[in-house]
């Protein structure tokens, strides 16, 4: 089946810097994308989502960008803090609005924040 992948498996940033985590997806039919944060020993935590009819969505300190032309998704974290250290997963699905759960997860990027 089609899968979501990530360009960088690990990312190390200095506290206060901005972080950018990238994700490539291959299913052009995907219409809904989610970023999750998973801290050690915990389940994935929903961060932000974006639908395919948008190319940018902002949350608190986070921004998701979607480039459908090249099937690329990114998560930007502003002023990265030690508490942001975690593994970040992108996930894709299709048939947004329909009741389905086939989220396809990327491999994950480990973000380490240096104080």
């Amino acid at each position: 089946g089609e899968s979501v992948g990530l360009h960088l498996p690990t990312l190390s940033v200095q506290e206060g810097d901005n972080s950018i985590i990238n994700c490539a997806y291959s299913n052009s039919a995907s219409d809904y994308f989610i970023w999750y944060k998973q801290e050690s020993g915990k389940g994935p935590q929903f961060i932000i989502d974006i639908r395919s009819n948008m190319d940018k969505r902002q949350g608190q300190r986070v921004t998701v960008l979607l480039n459908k032309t090249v099937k690329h998704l990114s998560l930007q974290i502003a002023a990265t803090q030690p508490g942001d250290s975690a593994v970040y997963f992108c996930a894709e699905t299709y048939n947004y609005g329909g009741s389905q759960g086939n989220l396809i997860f990327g491999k994950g990027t480990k973000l380490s924040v240096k104080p």
Partner: protein
Amino acid sequence: SAVISQKPSRDICQRGTSLTIQCQVDSQVTMMFWYRQQPGQSLTLIATANQGSEATYESGFVIDKFPISRPNLTFSTLTVSNMSPEDSSIYLCSVEENSNEQFFGPGTRLTVL
């Protein structure tokens, strides 16, 4: 978002035995799912837990190995049957809210010896 709890949080089991994992949600939800996360890997959907009917399994997962119950809209169980070391993983339940937003439980860390 819904508050999701899982029991047990972790377990160490012997090869050939079975373990039942419980997932409890603090509100009624239509859609519940079970995922597996193998060590150092991403999440893979096992099945959709359907209330009042048999679960819908993804390719590579079968009911005999991973029987699922969903007796009501707040509770589900996943059993890992006849376990082998390859079943060592984190098992997570999730619920869907607001049309496609999925929220996850804390996971059950299973080690099979």
